[in-house]
């Protein structure tokens, strides 16, 4: 279980509080833009220093760990692949920070590439792939890295609605069992795949609530965000 204990982030005049636990499965983070959704993920990934609080995973404190030393994989809004490396090299980086892979590791990479439906494209460079295929390659790297927590910072936002829905389903299928935190500005994404939803509004990240319940009985802040009159 991922625990955020008395988290405080100060960024100039902006501040953010979070005091919550995240269960395995997909948890969407929704809320008004500029509310700090990406900042919260950055803090979890280790890119954002905390003013106060603790982050722990399965009881172990990871607050001070370097980004790569956390049990976390992350997909960013863009630049998830190195354009000068082949797809298999990009995926292979999920197994270790150099490009020297043992035979069994190569098999893992090939398997992940197959699993995301990129058969036969292992030797191509990202520039030769479509946007959707690039997202799949990035997802393949998350698969081989095999870390229990996955942070998704709107990595599919640039895809069309159909492709995005397809990627969300693929994510749900391939990452089952892991603790996935997914930032989105589109409530329908949350409805489609999220088990739980964290509402981030008024500088506070609320406790996760079951998705159906959240949308059946939206709190005031969510109503305002969804544009429904209170």
């Amino acid at each position, binding site marked *: 279980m991922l625990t955020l204990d008395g988290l405080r982030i100060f960024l100039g005049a902006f501040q953010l509080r979070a005091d919550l636990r995240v269960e395995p499965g997909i948890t969407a983070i929704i809320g008004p833009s500029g509310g700090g959704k990406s900042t919260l993920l950055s803090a979890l*990934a*280790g*890119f954002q220093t905390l003013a106060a609080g603790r982050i722990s995973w399965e009881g172990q404190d990871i607050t001070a760990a*370097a*980004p*790569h*030393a956390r049990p*976390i*994989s*992350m997909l*960013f809004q863009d*630049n*998830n692949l*190195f*354009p*000068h*490396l082949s797809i298999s090299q990009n995926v292979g*980086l*999920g197994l*270790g*920070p*150099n*490009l020297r892979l043992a035979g069994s590791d190569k098999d893992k990479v090939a398997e992940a590439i197959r699993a995301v439906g990129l058969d036969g494209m292992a030797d191509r*460079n990202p*520039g030769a792939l479509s946007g959707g295929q690039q997202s799949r390659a990035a997802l393949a790297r998350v698969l081989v890295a095999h870390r229990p927590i996955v942070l998704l910072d709107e990595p599919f936002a640039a895809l069309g609605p159909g492709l995005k829905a397809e990627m969300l389903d693929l994510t749900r299928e391939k990452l089952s069992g892991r603790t996935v935190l997914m930032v989105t500005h589109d409530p329908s994404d949350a409805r489609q795949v999220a088990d739980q939803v964290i509402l981030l509004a008024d500088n506070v990240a609320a406790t996760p609530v079951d998705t159906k319940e959240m949308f059946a009985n939206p709190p005031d802040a969510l109503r305002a965000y969804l544009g429904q009159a209170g």
Partner: protein
Amino acid sequence: MARGLVAVINRLPAWLAMALVLGLTFGTLAAVAARAELGRGVSSADWAAVRFTITQAIASALISVALAVPAARALARRSFRGRRALITLMGAPFLLPVIVAVLGLLAVFGRGGVLNGALAALGFPQISIYGFWGVVLAHVFFNLPLAVRLILQGWQAIPAERFRLTASLNGSVFRLLEVPMLARVVPGALLVVFLICLTSFAVALTLGGGPRATTVELAIYQAIQFDFDLGRAALLACIQFALGLSAAFVAWQVTPSQGMGRGLDRIVQRWDKGSVGFDALALTFATVFLALPLLMVLLRGAPGLFDMPNAVWAAAGRSVIVAVASAVLCVALALALAMRGGVAVSVVGVLPLAASGLVMGTGLFVLVYPFVSPRSVALPVTVLVNAALALPFAVRAIAPAVADAKRDYGRLSASLGLRGWDLLRIVVIPRARRPLGFAAGLAAALSMGDLGVITLFAGDAQETLPLTMYRLMGSYQMEAAAGAGLLLLALSLALFWLCDQGGRRDADT
């Protein structure tokens, strides 16, 4: 604790690079000052030299950049056969040893040159290259190509999306894109040319026409060689540093810091084509101005090529080794500095340009002499100094690409655990490959043509090609010297071209 240690180790290369630059600039200056006895201080003639130095450097910088802007724009928006070759040719004058270039210039603009021959044939009065404007002309010849490259980079950094947007708004590319880009790029180009001309020595002395064209560097030379007044030399070197750093400060103050934003590296398609005639004129002028003296070097040197003693070939071999070694060292140092970034790096990047080569050589000599024979360290010292002298250009070329790589892929790299050597090998070096190749080529070629510290340190077993060429001239062997000059030009260009192409080969987005 452990993280702190890792951070120190990661910063170590940058610290070493900065220490080296500071040691070679201020350290050697201090060494010279420490050897000084009470001299007669700075004279009125020295202040006249300071004034002349500033005036000619400003004029050279303004003219070089003014001519470079139309040429760079033409290169940026036209595609034609030989464009790449032209850009490579643009590198040549900058890489030439001064005396080779001066002889080439004189073959065109001198009293017995092509231009005056043509003027005389047409019944026009002759023009004289010597004097203030001769110095400026030579400096423009050396620096116009560099200014074109620096400004061309600015044009190429405008993302294709901006041209599309401007076209769709039916806006003026010039006002909306080019003027802001130039405002960002021109001060830096002016600064670099100003700094190079600030430390000019042989150009001013040969073409200046007399003692009124004395530069600070020349005054330093005379203080050391003629008066053996090391104190005055050190004082003058301080003045030179002060001038260089003031110029750098001014350039940084007037340079707007916001960038052009990012594009997706599509091939730039433009909807404004402007006047073809004007672009053709700008390119023709630049090409003729730059190529004609080079052609003269070629014509003069060709007969001598087959008449050169073996010593020339041996010296050429040594020069190539020194050039390659200093290019590798220079690029490594530049990479270390660029990875660190920040103001300190900018300052360190300017210092070698404002340093007096003579004070550097003399200071190193004073430092080395009590311990080892200068001859035995001549080539390593040359490698070190040449690397440091090329460092400002290398840092300028590499730093933006490294900054882009860090901005675009820093978090991804950190989350994947790419650090230290792996980060360089897998991310930074491939991303910065083009500027790395360019910087390596530049450093190698600059080192080939350099005739600096080697003169103080070398015996005849350590002669480099420029030194051999100079010694040939001193022995009435003008033809063989011209041949050696041509060989030098060819090797410099070849090294530059190889490195530059190496950076481009298989280069992806």
